[in-house]
């Protein structure tokens, strides 16, 4: 099922917001488990998102152009003696989608902030 244009599902919003927090913290790219950990920080029970749910949502976000991914250099992974990581990065479209969703939420929370409400203000 595809989302309505401009609308993000809660899991997608969680991923993008966690990705933006990591970006602010200096990590421009993230792998699946890192984003799951970052998302868990914002939750009361610190639960990690289920693997199936997480990777399905990451695939969807990439397909819709809100994320892009690359596989890390094999030499780097071999040096660290760990499996290859798939590294995701939020695109400009992803940042816009988060900002637009935040603005929509803010309007719902405070209707006086909406454009029609502003227009009606004397």
């Amino acid at each position, binding site marked *: 099922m595809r989302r309505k244009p401009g609308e993000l599902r809660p899991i997608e919003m969680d991923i993008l917001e966690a990705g933006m927090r990591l970006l602010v913290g200096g990590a421009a790219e993230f792998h*699946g*488990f890192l984003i799951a950990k970052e998302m868990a920080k914002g939750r009361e029970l610190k639960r990690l998102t289920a*693997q*199936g749910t997480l*990777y*399905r949502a990451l695939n969807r976000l990439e397909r819709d152009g809100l994320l892009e991914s690359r596989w890390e250099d094999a030499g780097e992974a071999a040096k660290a003696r760990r499996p*290859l990581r*798939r590294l995701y990065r939020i695109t400009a479209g992803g940042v816009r989608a988060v900002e637009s969703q935040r603005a929509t939420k803010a309007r719902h929370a405070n209707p006086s902030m909406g454009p029609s409400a502003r227009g009606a203000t004397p």
Partner: protein
Amino acid sequence: MSHAIYRAAELIVRAWVKLYLVGVPREARGQRRAEIASDLYEYRLNVQEQGISPAAAGLYLLLRCTAGALDDLLWRSELGGALGGLSMLYRSAARAALATAFILLLPFLAMQLHLGVPDPGGVTEQVAWTPFDFAFAGVLLFGAGLTYQLIAKKMGSVAYQAAVGVAVAAALLLVWVNGAVGIIGSEDNSANLMYGGVLAVGIIGTLIARFRPHGMARVLFATAFVQALVAVIALIATQTDPSFWGEAIRTQQPSPVLQLLGVNGMFIALFLGSAWLFRTAARGGGLPLVQGRRVDPRAG
């Protein structure tokens, strides 16, 4: 991490990933497998860093996998275009359901037409299945059919497919015969629970062997060995304590010993036959999940 529960949890997760990736195009399959391998590695590292108990971490890993299982299947179905319309999983499930319905139709019709089946004593008995019988048979047949469709038909040579078919059919028969009439005495004889060990060896061994034909051949040899062991225990117990066989020992025709040898011999032959077919498949090679063929996740 060497804890048995943690290791078993990782094995189950990897087996689940392999199962739902059967039939998925190579590139998507390789990428998902590599991503889960990375996730499992990072999780293990995280557990060690935080000093979490391995048993608790293993159970949490299983929970995390189970909670996302539906999304795994939905992700698979979203690849519909690449899989050519309906996903293979759904098509396999539909085929297994159709075959199950067709087979269950036979006893249902027999009941409607009041048909009978001759039993070994020569007395014709009418078919009289309860709803529980239909449900039990339905779950068994559908499970066996889906297992065969997912593992064998999409995964390799004719020998490998035949090996899976024989093993699944033998396991299905073992459960059915034990549930319906019991191999040792009657179906109420608790000694028949020993055959649960035969199935356990097969299932746990399959998870450890990860469907690789070399490993599967060993698993099926072990399964045949356990089947023989159960028969030997039953024979010795029947000789030393006739009540072991249950009430039926005096009236049973053919004799308990002949029955034990015949029925167990048939299952041993089936498991050994399957083991031989797996060995043949291993020698032939060329299986997608066999010999650990590496798929470059970045390919394509």
